[in-house]
């Protein structure tokens, strides 16, 4: 079966830096799989995510090192790759570029040549999927942080990506916003890859995790097993999440999925 994402021996060094940001990374993500990328600040998580969309490296080597849905990421097929990989950035302000929510969600589809009534129904549909029906005419700078993030997600979904790549999807959200956004992500089909410091997010959504440190893949496997390994967690700037230490005060029904 074709992997949703396949990476072989991927290395990258920012110009002028002595150490590589990514050091011979190799892993696979199966279609429909949800994988968390964990690791301390500066581990290379965001750099890796930019590679998945072909935004890095600036100069491609001869042999491809990344395959999305079986297709190699090369300069020649960047447009297809970017359509297949939906990238949600950490700061919604960077992603929301238009004056109205409608125009922003329509930004991707417009590039694909969709317009008229089909564009309108697509935007409406995407806003409903993220729980913001009727937000078309709103202005991005008047939305709450959680709403901004959802509009960003709607804009990504509008391109119908096969792989969803999320950079810190729950940072800066209040507990309710986080819970709702998690439930929203869980409902979305397709492979998902999320870089996060929110270990509860990994526990709740991602059966499998990768741990990155210093640009290297230091561990991968079952999320609960990895996170329960105290030694491994502390060695890489992480910790055992509370949900693995205590019972949740609201009981298991409160959580999205459990052991």
């Amino acid at each position, binding site marked *: 079966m074709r992997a949703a994402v396949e990476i072989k021996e991927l290395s990258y060094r920012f110009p002028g830096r002595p150490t590589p940001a990514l050091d011979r990374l190799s892993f696979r993500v199966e279609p429909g799989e949800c994988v968390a990328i964990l690791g301390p600040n500066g581990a290379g998580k965001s750099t890796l995510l930019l590679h998945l969309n072909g*935004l890095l490296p600036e100069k491609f080597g001869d042999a491809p090192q990344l395959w999305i849905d079986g297709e190699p990421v090369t300069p020649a097929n960047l447009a297809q790759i970017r*359509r297949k990989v939906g*990238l949600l950035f950490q700061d919604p302000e960077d992603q929301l*570029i238009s*004056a*109205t929510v409608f125009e922003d969600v329509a*930004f991707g589809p417009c590039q694909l040549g969709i317009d008229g009534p089909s564009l309108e129904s697509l935007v409406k549909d995407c806003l409903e999927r993220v729980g913001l029906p009727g937000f078309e005419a709103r202005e991005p*700078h008047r939305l709450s942080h959680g709403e901004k993030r959802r509009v960003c997600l709607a804009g990504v979904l509008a391109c119908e990506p096969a792989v969803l790549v999320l950079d810190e999807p729950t940072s800066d959200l209040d507990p309710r916003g986080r819970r709702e956004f998690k439930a929203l992500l869980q409902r979305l089909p397709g492979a998902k890859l999320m870089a996060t410091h929110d270990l509860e997010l990994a526990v709740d959504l991602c059966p499998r995790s990768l741990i990155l440190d210093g640009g290297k893949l230091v561990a991968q496997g079952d999320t609960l097993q990895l996170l329960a390994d105290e030694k491994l967690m502390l060695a890489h700037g992480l910790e055992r999440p509370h949900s693995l230490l205590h019972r949740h005060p609201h009981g298991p029904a409160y959580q999205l999925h459990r052991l």
Partner: protein
Amino acid sequence: MQARTTFEGQTWLHRVRAGLKLAVTLAVVLFTVMLPRRPHLAALVPLSFLLIVWLSARPPLRLMLKRLLVAEFFILGLALLTVFNPAAAPLVAAALIKSNLCVIALLLLTWSTPFLEILHVLRRLGLPEVMLSTLALMVRYLPVLREESRRMQRARASRTFSSGRRLAWRSLGNIIGQLFVRSADRAERIYLAMCARGWK
């Protein structure tokens, strides 16, 4: 910014179609610009027209004066250049009258019309896409920049314990410099986010 001033106190001027307002403003500006180089009675035509519009729509005086003041710096800057030559006084006076009339016409337009509507009209008129998207991005990110500079100023103020004017100016300089650097970084991230959604 535009939207806020529009939602409060809707006047008849707000309800006029954006295209019409843009056309009339353009006509007023063109007429004013083409007046003779020395002060001329014909300047009373745009002046009385603008006065009628102003008095019937009654824009908030303080807001308009504040905005006029911003433009006035540039106008006076130009006027200063000709002060060295006293013979040029009538020319300077005419230039002052003309530029103020034009600025007031534009102020009335932007006060009564959401910027988005102006953009739509310009798009229908077939202005180059590069110009339109630059304008649209500017309008989108002005509030973000304002918020960012406010946050920086607050953070700076929370660690400022002396009340030296020099220090204040220096930290203002720092903040402006920082704002440039951060904006450049943000522009880079925005560009990446646009590419990620298929921008070429």
